[in-house]
């Protein structure tokens, strides 16, 4: 295992930035976000989780699918230019694990998304383990932990004055080999890694039964959905901050007869998400939409990819204005069924 001094981090980022784009955790007007960084002193550590997740780096909210020229006469379509290498620094272990869920959606199906694939291949995730999870975290319920390595290329375990560096994938090893002068080999230090791995979150385990998706199958008209949906304001907050939500809308942006086709995030909570031509909407009220959101996360996703679509990062819980809590749904469904 290697050692990386905290003071070396900004010169590591500067060195990497010659040929890659750096997305690092910075504080901007009191909000910690993962954003493209040019001044490498500004990366910060005092956050539990960034407001946006690493999903922004690989599946951005607003992405150009193609440009087109003179739409109906002789149409020419032009795909975007290849993407640059990118590094996401300061990601949390739960967000890195969320990328594996998005990989299942965008890469494993019968059709794969080439833009996402290219960004993932050209992207490296450097994770910092969590020193103090807060009351919203429940990653341990999805067999992750504040020190988990799933989905990351390199994991840094913070100690007082240096980071213990653990390479997880080939990409990680190569990156360390290329910048060997900043790292120092200090032999195996498993006790630091284990101290993070078996750290319990404040919320403790919500211990989700493995067959929760079976139980949820018949629960389509359960009155519980009506009870939670009554509180929900119908904003897209929980779905946009969630690192595993992947629904998107394709829309054309026309400028005269040229223009582009863009892909933007969309939320099942919005009223026009399922609105069809002829004003037919099978999910007219918040009850159906709230049911769709939780059934997708706890039943449909598990049926298709055999994993729950949640990593317990706690963002939707912290940001929901009216406290709709996915762990509340899980515990209620567990007791009731």
């Amino acid at each position: 295992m290697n050692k990386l001094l905290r003071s070396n981090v900004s010169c590591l980022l500067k060195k990497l930035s010659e040929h890659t784009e750096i997305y690092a955790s910075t504080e901007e007007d009191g909000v910690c976000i993962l954003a493209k960084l040019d001044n490498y002193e500004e990366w910060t550590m005092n956050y539990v989780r960034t407001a946006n997740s690493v999903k922004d780096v690989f599946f951005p909210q607003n992405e150009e699918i193609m440009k087109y020229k003179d739409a109906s006469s002789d149409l020419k379509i032009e795909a975007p230019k290849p993407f640059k290498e990118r590094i996401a620094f300061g990601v949390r272990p739960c967000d890195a694990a969320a990328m594996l869920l998005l990989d299942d959606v965008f890469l494993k199906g019968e059709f794969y998304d080439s833009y996402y694939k290219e960004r993932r291949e050209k992207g490296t995730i450097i994770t910092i383990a969590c020193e103090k999870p807060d009351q919203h975290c429940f990653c341990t319920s999805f067999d992750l932990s504040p020190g988990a390595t799933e989905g990351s290329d390199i994991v840094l375990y913070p100690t007082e004055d240096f980071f213990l560096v653990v390479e997880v994938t080939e990409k990680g090893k190569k990156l360390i080999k290329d910048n060997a002068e900043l790292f120092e080999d200090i032999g195996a230090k498993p006790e630091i890694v284990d101290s993070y791995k078996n750290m319990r979150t404040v919320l403790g385990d919500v211990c989700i039964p493995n067959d929760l998706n079976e139980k949820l199958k018949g629960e389509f008209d359960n009155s519980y959905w009506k009870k939670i949906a009554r509180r929900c304001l119908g904003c897209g907050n929980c779905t946009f901050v969630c690192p595993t939500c992947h629904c998107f809308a394709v829309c054309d942006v026309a400028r005269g007869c040229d223009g582009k086709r863009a892909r933007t995030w969309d939320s099942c909570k919005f009223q026009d998400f399922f609105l069809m031509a002829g004003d037919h909407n099978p999910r007219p009220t918040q009850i159906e939409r709230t049911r769709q959101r939780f059934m997708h996360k706890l039943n449909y996703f598990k049926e298709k990819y055999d994993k729950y679509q949640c990593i317990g990062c706690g963002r939707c819980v912290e940001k929901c204005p009216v406290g709709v809590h996915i762990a509340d749904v899980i515990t209620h469904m567990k007791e009731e069924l």
Partner: protein
Amino acid sequence: MCSSHNQLVPKVATIKKITEETSSGDVKTFYVEFDKPEERAEFKNMPGQCAMISVLGVGESMISITSSPTRPDPLEFSIKKMGKVTSKLHDMSVGSKIGIRGPYGNNFPVDEWRGKDLVFIGGGIGLAPLRSVINYCIDKKENYGSISIIYGSRSPADLCFKEELFDNWPNLEGVEVHLTVDKVEEGERWDKSVGFVPQYLEQISPSPNNSIAITCGPPIMIKYVLESLEKMKFEDEQIITTLELKMQCGVGYCGRCNIGDKYVCIDGPVFSYKQIKEMPQEF
């Protein structure tokens, strides 16, 4: 160019011919050809599959391919004027360019139907998805038993594919065509049946043994057709229908068209009545 072609980028195609199906002009059939022949070669469609038609600057919509793969070029799409994209399509003229990508969705299980009698029940524009599989079965008539087509629409003027309904299909051996309309204005010549499709279906009452019923049409018609098929002892696996929902990407990762854990664009749009019964009733 980007590393490899993305699923969401359409291919350029031209509208070669437009025919009006209904006199009121709200249903038109577009004959479309790819600009690049090699892209047409990649586009191997089976009956019942759909394609994403893009009108650049307006949007995309999923339309079922109404021409049978046995009569490949040009591809035909019958489109009713409903939303933003379809109305813009209806204003387009011959020679203008559109985008196509696909084919998407599963197709009618034509291999399982070998040696079976086929009953096609269509309503209004619902005949468009069925027409591709009807022509497919007619061109491979030796594999199948008798084919009966029961089709109805609001009025004689609203009947789609009149040329095939009156001159083409009835004269073929082993194919019966039964037409009905909801109402007939006076002064219109109409000698066939008058009445709704489900009641007309019960009059004809095809025998359920060794036969498959395929239906497509407005949801209200499908509801009653399924009831009368059950009355006539058709098993759930014997009844097949296609569901047209809002589809955005067509390739199964935009999370838009799910009914329960089934994505209509990948697991459908062709479903058996047994599958539909298992799904939550949210479509």
